[in-house]
């Protein structure tokens, strides 16, 4: 489960509701959660604001950081 998926569920939002709030399609949220699409920084910021979180918490890949 991706971090975005986890925090979205924690906020009690469906993919469609989150998509509506950040003005994208549900499909885009689904693709981001499944790591099939890299959102723009602008979209990442909008998602973080809606979920009341920050970019690191939602989008930073811990495994990549540990490898470095």
């Amino acid at each position, binding site marked *: 489960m991706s971090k975005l998926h986890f925090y979205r569920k924690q906020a009690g939002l469906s993919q469609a*509701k989150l*998509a509506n709030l950040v003005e994208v*399609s549900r*499909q*885009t949220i689904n693709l981001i959660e499944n790591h099939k699409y890299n959102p723009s920084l602008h979209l990442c910021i909008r998602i973080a604001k809606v979920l009341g979180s920050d970019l690191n918490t939602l989008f930073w890949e811990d495994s990549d950081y540990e490898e470095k």
Partner: protein
Amino acid sequence: MKKNNFYTKLIKRLYGTNGVLDEYKLQKINSIGNVSFMIMAVYTLISSFVVTLMMSWNVSLYNILIIYTATNFLVLMALLAYILIAVSKLKLDEISVDDKPNYKKRLAKFRKSAIISGIGFFFVTRILSLFSPADITLLDRIVSPKDNVIQLIEALIFVIFMYIVMKRKIYQEK
């Protein structure tokens, strides 16, 4: 939400996409459009060269026109098919609904659209069929029960097909 300006509406209509035209959809549409443009550009170059060559060989202008028109039409149909398949494969035409009442509302809207399309289909095919050569008078052809019934059945099949195609685009989040 991106403003529904003329450009956005045109993109949605041409590519058959639904819902918000967000960054992901725009990215994919741009790449589909780029491939289509490249194919058209290469085809136009080659076809123009071939037409010029045929004219220098003194091939009949009528034949050149027929061949050129026919190949243009075929290439255009092939491109439209590519766009349709690419959009469908990437699910850019997906319609997302999050609850049952909205789902039912959408289905009702699709039924209405399919029926209106079917009526339009019936009249267009009926009018086009009147242009084909026949031994009976125009009035007899218009009121012919056999032709009307056949075209009604075709329109009904079209309505069912359109409804099924539209229904497949709906995604209901569970």
